């Protein structure tokens, strides 16, 4: 718009940059408050001021049972997220491949995915609860909760695969076929490497959406909670900074997941550029 003449930026740039900065402050500001508060001293409360700095509440979290079954729900959440991640990646990639061709019912599947995405989470939870009730099955994190979470992660995965495939150049596949590769070889040596960064994206979605999921899981967890439900219940009955400490801990886990995903995408890209340059 303004790049033709000189390199001077127009005033709108500075106005928009200021707006953007405010937005970022708005995003991160409140979150930083609870990270600070999780280091409250032993006599500190839920709000400022800080009464000293300590790791007291971190110790309390891992120590006694006063904050509920933290470790158990944490491990359940991580295991569930790992299963959801795996199933989401595999099923979304397969479905993404299917949608590159015409097939009867593709419209139905597409709209079912969109509907599943926008449906209020608690309604899904209610419905899955009914399903298990009428079948006489017991709800559990690895059955009913897993299924309920997949109705949320699969549509996201499918949408990402659409975006990935819309930029996918088919001539690579055709070249492989011309060199008489079998369909499986083509998939393994051509399609899969090209899809890899997109698949890591789907994996990140699958993991974090499951790890933080709460409305869909709420009614179908069975007798034991996942971490987000545990935290939500704490908001109503825990009045110590342990709540914020738990928030800090789960956020660290999320950050590790983000770091791993972005790091491996960067690694793949770098290896590719290096290989392209070497040739």
């Amino acid at each position: 718009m303004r790049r033709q003449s000189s390199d001077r930026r127009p005033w709108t740039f500075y106005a928009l940059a200021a707006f953007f900065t405010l937005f970022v402050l708005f995003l991160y500001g409140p979150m930083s408050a609870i990270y600070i508060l999780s280091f409250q001293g032993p006599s500190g409360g839920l709000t400022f001021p800080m009464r000293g700095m300590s790791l007291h509440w971190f110790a309390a979290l891992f120590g006694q049972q006063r904050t509920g079954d933290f470790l158990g729900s944490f491990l359940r959440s991580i295991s569930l997220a790992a299963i959801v991640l795996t199933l989401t990646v595999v099923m979304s990639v397969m479905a993404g491949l299917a949608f590159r061709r015409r097939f009867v019912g593709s419209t139905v599947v597409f709209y079912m995915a969109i509907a599943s995405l926008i449906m209020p989470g608690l309604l899904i939870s209610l419905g899955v609860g009914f399903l298990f009730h009428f079948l006489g099955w017991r709800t559990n994190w690895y059955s009913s909760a897993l299924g309920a979470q997949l109705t949320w992660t699969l549509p996201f995965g499918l949408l990402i695969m659409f975006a990935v495939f819309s930029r996918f150049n088919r001539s690579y596949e055709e070249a492989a076929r011309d060199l008489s590769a079998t369909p499986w070889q083509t998939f393994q040596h051509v399609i899969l490497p090209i899809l890899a960064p997109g698949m890591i994206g789907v994996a990140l979605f699958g993991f974090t959406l499951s790890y933080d999921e709460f409305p869909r899981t709420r009614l179908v967890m069975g007798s034991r909670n996942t971490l987000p439900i545990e935290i939500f219940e704490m908001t109503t009955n825990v009045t110590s900074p342990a709540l914020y400490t738990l928030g800090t801990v789960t956020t660290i886990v999320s950050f590790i997941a983000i770091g791993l995903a972005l790091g491996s995408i960067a690694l793949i890209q770098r290896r590719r550029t290096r290989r392209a340059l070497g040739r």
Partner: protein
Amino acid sequence: MSSSPAARIAPYLQVAPLALVLLVFFGLPLLLVVAVSFFTYDEFEIYPGFVLDNYIDLLTSRVTLQLYWNTIFYALTVWAITLVIGFTVSYFLVFHVRTFLWQLALFLLCTVPFWTSNVIRMISWIPFLGLNGIFNQSLIALGVTDKPLEFLLYSDFAVVLAYVHLFTLFMIVPIFNSMARIDRSLIEAAVDGGAKSWQVIWEVVIPLSKTGIALGSIFVIALVMGDFFVVQVMSGGQSASVVLAMSNEIAQLLYPPASASAVLLIVIVTLMVAGIMRLVDVRRELAG
């Protein structure tokens, strides 16, 4: 494309796992909710039947109207605010940030909170907005006010603020995506043709990012219409939404009325989304 029998059935096998999961855990449960909404019940059990009582109670209650008014008020307010923020932020990133690396870095900066827990992000407003919170104390320190402001927490203001904080990302990502795909030469052509910069935005940028705007709007409206925990916590129990009321019915084991209320909500959300999808053919733009 070869059209051997194997190649023809391949897509069906490939889509089967996803379709099956959605059918069992989304389609079937939805049908059950519809079925239960016609059931009868007492304090202990629900009984299969076909009565319209649950719907009659629901549709003749003034509470229903109040709940929908509340929820739709939240949805539209949040939609308008997130649309303005989402559009402005994306516009800045796409058209004003010049190097790709900076663009990516700033985009990631916006999306990282999306990967962290919603519950935690929501409760982080409490120490911020409370009577002794950071915001009030700063205002007092600056001499803007001598008494802490009470409307900041446990109010409609707090609810809308938390929604905007949680859901703006759902607006930014799709709008950014469609804006980034706009061919720059179209904009140069508009400028060469004498368009002012607001005309470029209005006549070129907005029409070409309408898929993103539509997708973002669908996300934000559906998320707000389906929420119950933000309303519950941030309004301090002073306000309610449709799903919060439903959640209370479920807690009292009133499953048939809760199901009827769920069916009504599904109809209304579907109508809103279908309205948006009529304006913009989201599927063609996504899959095409």
